[in-house]
């Protein structure tokens, strides 16, 4: 931020670095520890590179609350974080420690060494019928698929095929809650929150195993 007053002060404060990344690394770690201690670290997040792109992982104290593709929103991960701040709490900090288990299991999944996730999930971002769908999806086993119509029937609303599509498209926990295992009745993959290529990658990974 350059203001007229900076110019007035001339080079007096030149010795004070505008950015000091070393210091901020330390300070950030300290703030995370303090926030954790005081119980005000409402949303902890990290990013993780995977074969389907960089995923944003976010957890509340209850559990994993959000997995997001960078491409999901026009604003990318920054927009997702802003949305979490709005809908859950503005106390959002990058704090990978809380996501250690999640990270480990997702990595194992992509290495083909894990067929189910054993994680505490916080489903607060999913409500009503969408939440019912999300809950059902967790029961579709690794390597298996169901059609949108089958999911609709299973949730007791056989005519809600489109709503199932919407529920999948707005799944707050893709990959971990396997909306990628829902495909079209004709066998084609259908859309995906992380893009068609990501869906193909995940389905191929699971059939190869």
């Amino acid at each position, binding site marked *: *931020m350059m*203001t007229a*007053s*900076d110019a*007035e*002060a*001339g*080079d*007096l*404060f*030149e*010795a*004070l*670095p*505008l*950015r*000091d990344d*070393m*210091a*901020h690394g*330390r*300070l*950030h770690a*300290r*703030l995370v520890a*303090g*926030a954790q201690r*005081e119980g*005000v670290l409402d949303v902890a997040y990290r990013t993780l590179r995977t074969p389907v792109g960089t995923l944003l992982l976010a957890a509340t104290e209850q559990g994993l609350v959000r997995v997001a593709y960078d491409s999901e929103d026009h604003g990318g991960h920054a927009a997702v974080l802003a949305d979490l701040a709005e809908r859950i709490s*503005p*106390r959002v*900090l990058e704090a990978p420690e809380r996501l250690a288990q999640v990270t480990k299991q997702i990595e194992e999944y992509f290495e083909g060494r894990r067929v189910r996730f054993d994680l505490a999930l916080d489903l607060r971002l999913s409500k009503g019928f969408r939440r019912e769908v999300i809950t059902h999806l967790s029961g579709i086993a690794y390597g298996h698929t169901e059609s949108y119509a089958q999911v609709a029937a299973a949730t007791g609303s056989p005519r809600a095929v489109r709503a199932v599509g919407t529920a999948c498209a707005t799944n707050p926990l893709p990959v971990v809650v396997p909306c990628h295992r829902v495909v079209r009745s004709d066998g084609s993959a259908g859309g995906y929150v992380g893009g068609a290529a990501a869906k193909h990658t995940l389905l191929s990974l699971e059939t190869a195993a």
Partner: protein
Amino acid sequence: MAEYGPLVLRVCRAVVGPADAEDAWSETFLAALKAYPGLPEDARVEAWLVTIAHRKALDAARAGSRRPIAVGEVPESGRALADGRALTGGAAVTGGRSEEAGGTLKDPDQWDGDLWDALKALPQRQRSAVAYHYLAGLPYKEIAAVLGGSTDAARRAAADGIKSLRSSYPRRTHERGE
């Protein structure tokens, strides 16, 4: 935080000095995190953070001092403002966390001890006014709200502070690159 962290660190370094700046920053942001829903809709974040930082500095000064610090009174050192524990421990003693900070601050590229010496010599009120105006970019009206007193008094404190700094701080001869 990523947005305001660097700005607040510059302010803390200028107001409480290199040894205590990181403590002050940490306390400010933790307090801000706890208070976050209390941020008024129309408030500017810089002003809000500076207000918290200022309060933290005064709290620490009060906790560390047996006598109340009158506004405008010159503390013996910046340390008295930021960390009472360090004050009672003696000027040469720094806490574990500060030591960590001191480790990197020995690097002359990161922090110029001469600048802090010059700032330290200013009355606390002038030093605060200078930092809040020239580093945080607050208008004098907001600085007056933080420090107490009138807008004119805040402007005068900043002007007097800058004037003293210009004469006491050996400025670098080269011009700013941009």
